[in-house]
């Protein structure tokens, strides 16, 4: 179970609406390498891990990804809130407005809905942790693309912070993969 804290893991305070940037960032909300995918992947894989360190790490990082999902949702909301119809048209996100007004929605800015096809839970701990490490690299790369596209320091700062978390997660999953190989090797001698 979870305990909810009514604050963001890292502050998001965007003052200027920017529907184009909102559409780009929405991919980290409900897109292929986004925070929702990350969270569901790790929280699902946790169950079949053979060692407590792996269960614990997947649960902790899966929980943190939900906090990132919340942060990215706040970014998207703040970028859409207050955008005028003219700004929405100029940004070319009329289809977003048609389906959602200015609402945050788990999909990509091009309208592709979230799907569990983005993630895998294979039941093979080595395969799953290797996927998780790749997932962290893809999330890091996505944040770098978003930083390239952003101009507003209020947008860049939380993106920079979220990217750094992916670097840390990669390190932690790598350490867990080492432990899983240790566990696998130790089983050979019984």
């Amino acid at each position, binding site marked *: 179970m979870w305990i909810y804290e009514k604050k963001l893991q*890292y502050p998001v305070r965007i003052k200027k609406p920017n529907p184009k940037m909102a559409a780009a960032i929405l991919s980290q909300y409900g897109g292929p390498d986004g925070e929702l995918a990350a969270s569901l992947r790790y929280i699902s894989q946790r169950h079949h891990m053979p060692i407590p360190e792996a269960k614990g790490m997947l649960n902790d990082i899966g929980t943190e990804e939900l906090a990132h999902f919340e942060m990215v949702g706040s970014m998207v909301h703040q970028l859409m809130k207050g955008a005028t119809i003219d700004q929405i048209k100029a940004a070319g996100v009329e289809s977003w407005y048609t389906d959602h007004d200015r609402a945050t929605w788990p999909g990509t800015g091009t309208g592709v809905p979230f799907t569990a096809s983005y993630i895998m839970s294979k039941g093979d701990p080595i395969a799953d942790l*290797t996927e998780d*490490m790749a997932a962290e690299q893809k999330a890091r790369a996505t*944040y*770098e693309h978003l*930083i*390239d596209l952003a101009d507003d320091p209020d947008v*860049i700062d939380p993106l*920079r*912070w*979220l*990217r*750094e*978390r992916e*670097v*840390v997660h*990669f*390190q932690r*999953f*790598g*350490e867990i*993969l*080492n432990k899983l*190989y240790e566990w696998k090797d130790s089983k050979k001698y019984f």
Partner: protein
Amino acid sequence: MYYDYQTEPRRPEHGQPYPPEHQNLQLARAYVLPQTYTKAFPPEEALKQGTLFPELVMPYDKRH
């Protein structure tokens, strides 16, 4: 000011094989160097950086 505490990440010497050969690693496996605790940021700085550990700060240079 964010990067005051930054230390160089540990890297093999230039021109050396990667990963270093002496570690007796096996084929067809992925490895990440286990982190050993050296130092930590004070809590305020850790929140800003996104990590408690200076050696994990690896900032990105924005492309223009």
